[in-house]
């Protein structure tokens, strides 16, 4: 049986969020203070996305 090639399935360790160009994965911003993209709460992520610091790594996340 062939495996599904559904591209909505991400590898377990794939990062959920990507920082904007040339920003590191851990940073400090005026809106939320210290942020670590690898330990990010979804509610905080929405704020950071709205402020333009990060984007979802996949549109279906």
């Amino acid at each position, binding site marked *: 049986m062939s495996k599904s090639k559904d591209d909505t399935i991400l590898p377990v360790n794939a990062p959920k969020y990507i920082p904007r160009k040339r920003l*590191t994965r851990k940073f*400090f911003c*005026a809106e939320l203070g210290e942020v670590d993209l690898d330990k990010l709460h979804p509610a905080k992520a929405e704020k950071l996305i709205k402020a333009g610091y990060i984007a979802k790594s996949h549109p279906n996340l």
Partner: protein
Amino acid sequence: MNDLLFTQGKDNLAGIVDKIFIAASDDIDSLPDLAAAESLVTAATDIVMKSTKKFQQLYITDETGSVTITSVGERDGKGRQTVLQGRYPALGKELADAIRLYQNTPSVLIYRLARNGKLYIIGASQLDQSDVGLSLAIPAYFTNAEAGSGALRSDQNGALLSWTWTAAHDPIEYAGAVPLTPAP
């Protein structure tokens, strides 16, 4: 000249909060531009560090951090001198090692104002008033670390650290993020 007005009924707390962030000027690859040449606020882009470099964090005891900005120079040639200071609360090798590195390193520092939560940079200057570009040509210099053990049990130990920066203008509001992991 512009109007200088004040909105009543808004929060307006004094002091600086959170940590101070510090990097050697030489470790910075690029600074953001100002959003407009006429105003001291950057565009929403980030400081980019050179490979393997990042900003370091400096803890300060709450209500010991301050920024003081005074006019310096003669008539027709005045500038603004900024002194940023804060107290680190523990004497010891961590503090001694940090001071040794701070004291002779031209630096860029970022602090956060309590009144609005925004970040401000010293050590980055707008040299050309008509241009949005920022320069590292005038860094902030470490001024003093008044360190001591205290004598009475009720005394403080640690050090009051301070940096001084002089430019044509006040510290610049930074609308980007401070990189806390080494640049790739």
